């Protein structure tokens, strides 16, 4: 294990940012710390980097106890959300910074800087100032700067958070490919579940200073440990007292009219519920329908073709059944259910 975090606790005044957190980050993998804002994921990353001192607990990096090691001795690469570019230095000097501090011979530094600038596709921008680069380019420069010192771990704090949607997506794909090329142990913080699912080998879900679940993207999506993880990783809806994903609900149109609809289903599969469609919305290739049942409103997503075949529209009586093998979680109290 490349990073071992044991029983780390960190408070800011009365606010508990990290509450007895223990987690291991595997070597050479791309790990995402995923969670809502203020959940403690950035604090955890900064504790690993040595930018915050934990109140209790230990941090081990590559088998060495780093808890009391100052940040500059931890040999970690850190990338900030807002780039933290050295504004008065050229792109090349930014990348060379860590090497100059380490008194690397000039020729070697120049060679390494060239290599990294090629890697992040900024070779033609070497002599520009950061202010002459776009956000995406600045973040690639920051990444090259962090990689220049050959860090034992690379930490990225919401690296794409300040970028617009299109650039974010490009950079995300690029980071994935880059990691396959240079498999340095990488941890990145994000609140975007899509980003985590798409890029990471492993996801650590952090909420309210605690770890909710650790696992591969498939694990988390298919076998969420609790309703929070399930709700955070994708849209959920409440169906007969359990949480299920809207696209994992099988829809059957039943004979009968609006009056009989809404009665508990006694004729269908276990867990099935009767209701009537109250509204449909088409979004691109899918159709979202709201079905009113006896005691809840269920969101259902079907493909456009399915909706057409079924004749799904407002006023139609339907029977809803959770699809077989679909991930479910026990529904929490009423108000906590989010339909994302």
């Amino acid at each position, binding site marked *: 294990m490349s990073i071992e975090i044991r029983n780390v606790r960190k408070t800011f005044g009365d606010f508990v940012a990290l509450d007895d957190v223990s987690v291991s980050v595997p070597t050479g993998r791309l790990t995402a710390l995923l969670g809502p804002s203020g959940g403690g994921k950035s604090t955890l990353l900064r504790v690993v980097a040595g930018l915050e001192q934990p109140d209790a607990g230990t941090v081990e990096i590559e088998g060495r106890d780093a808890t009391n090691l100052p940040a500059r*001795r931890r040999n970690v*690469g850190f990338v900030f959300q807002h780039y933290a570019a050295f504004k008065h230095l050229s792109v090349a000097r930014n990348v060379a910074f860590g090497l100059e501090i380490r008194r690397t011979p000039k020729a070697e530094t120049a060679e390494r800087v060239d290599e990294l600038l090629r890697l992040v596709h900024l070779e033609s921008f070497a002599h520009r100032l950061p202010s002459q680069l776009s956000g995406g380019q600045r973040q690639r420069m920051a990444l090259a700067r962090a990689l220049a010192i050959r860090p034992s771990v690379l930490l990225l704090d919401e690296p794409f958070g300040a970028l617009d949607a299109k650039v974010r997506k490009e950079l995300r794909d690029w980071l994935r490919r880059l990691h396959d090329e240079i498999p340095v142990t990488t941890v990145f913080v994000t609140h975007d579940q899509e980003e985590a699912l798409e890029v990471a080998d492993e996801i650590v879900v952090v909420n309210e200073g605690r770890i909710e679940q650790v696992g591969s993207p498939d694990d988390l999506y298919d076998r969420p440990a609790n309703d929070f993880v399930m709700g955070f990783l994708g849209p959920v809806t409440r169906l007969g007292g359990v949480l299920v994903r809207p696209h994992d609900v099988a829809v059957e149109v039943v004979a009968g009219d609006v009056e009989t609809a809404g009665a508990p289903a006694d004729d269908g599969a276990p867990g099935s519920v009767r209701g009537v469609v109250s509204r449909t919305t088409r979004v691109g290739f899918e159709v979202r329908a709201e079905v009113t049942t006896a005691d809840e409103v269920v969101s259902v997503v079907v493909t456009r073709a399915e909706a057409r075949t079924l004749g799904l529209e407002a006023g139609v009586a339907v029977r809803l059944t959770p699809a077989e093998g679909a991930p479910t979680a026990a529904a929490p109290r009423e108000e906590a259910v989010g339909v994302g």
Partner: protein
Amino acid sequence: MADTSTVARTADGSRGVRYGLRALVVVYLVLLVGWPVSLVVRGAFADGLETLRTALSDPSVVFALQLTASVAVQVVVLNTLFGVGISLLLVRYDFPGKSLLNALLDLPLSVSPIVVGLSLVLVYGKDGWFGGTLESAGMQVIFAPPGIVLATAFVCLPLVIREVVPVLTEIGTDEELAATSLGATWFQTFRRITLPAIRWAVVYGVVLTLARALGEFGAVKVVSGNFEGRTQTSTLLVEQRYQDFEQGTAFAVAFLLASVSVACIVAVTFLRSDSPSSPKATS
């Protein structure tokens, strides 16, 4: 077309106000600044360059100018070092009594320089709390150049700090933390990252300090003793010569002091519009 005429009238009205305000400001500045200063210049050059030459051949005048320059340089060095240090302390660290320190730093601006002078005499004077000890160690502060430096440094204390603190606050800590994570020590981070980021604020503070230090009068008058040729600075000399009816010399020295200050202001104006840290030109 009621709307249009209303707009036109408003525009007319505001034009009237605009010109009125301009005229008021110009008259005010002429009466308060322009005219008096121009009289000083005229006084200094009443006999061509003769007055200036006579003044500069007076050893007391030369001594006073040198003393003022030497004091100003020492004050600039002291206040730049302490100013940058105190600014870092105020912005980057939390400690008990921080807001008190912050308030105290503005004291030199609000307290009369005479009071500053008197308080220094109380501490460092011959019968002061600390002065006796220093004197027996062979170091005279009051009625000597060190006292003049102290008094001037006190008066100029906030100038560098008030320039540097907002810039330090604005640049934030990300760059410094990035440098640290890349292996830089505190001092390397300061020299390579923080200092370049605040350099224009420091330069600006230095220029302001220099201008203020050259012109300080009240505090210096109390602590220096005003001994001609020993502790008499240029401003003190101007006052004395003026009262002794040597107006030519007074005007000549006053002109020299004023021209350095004007040069400082011009420098500041250029720095303000060109410096990358000015609000106009942020990236």
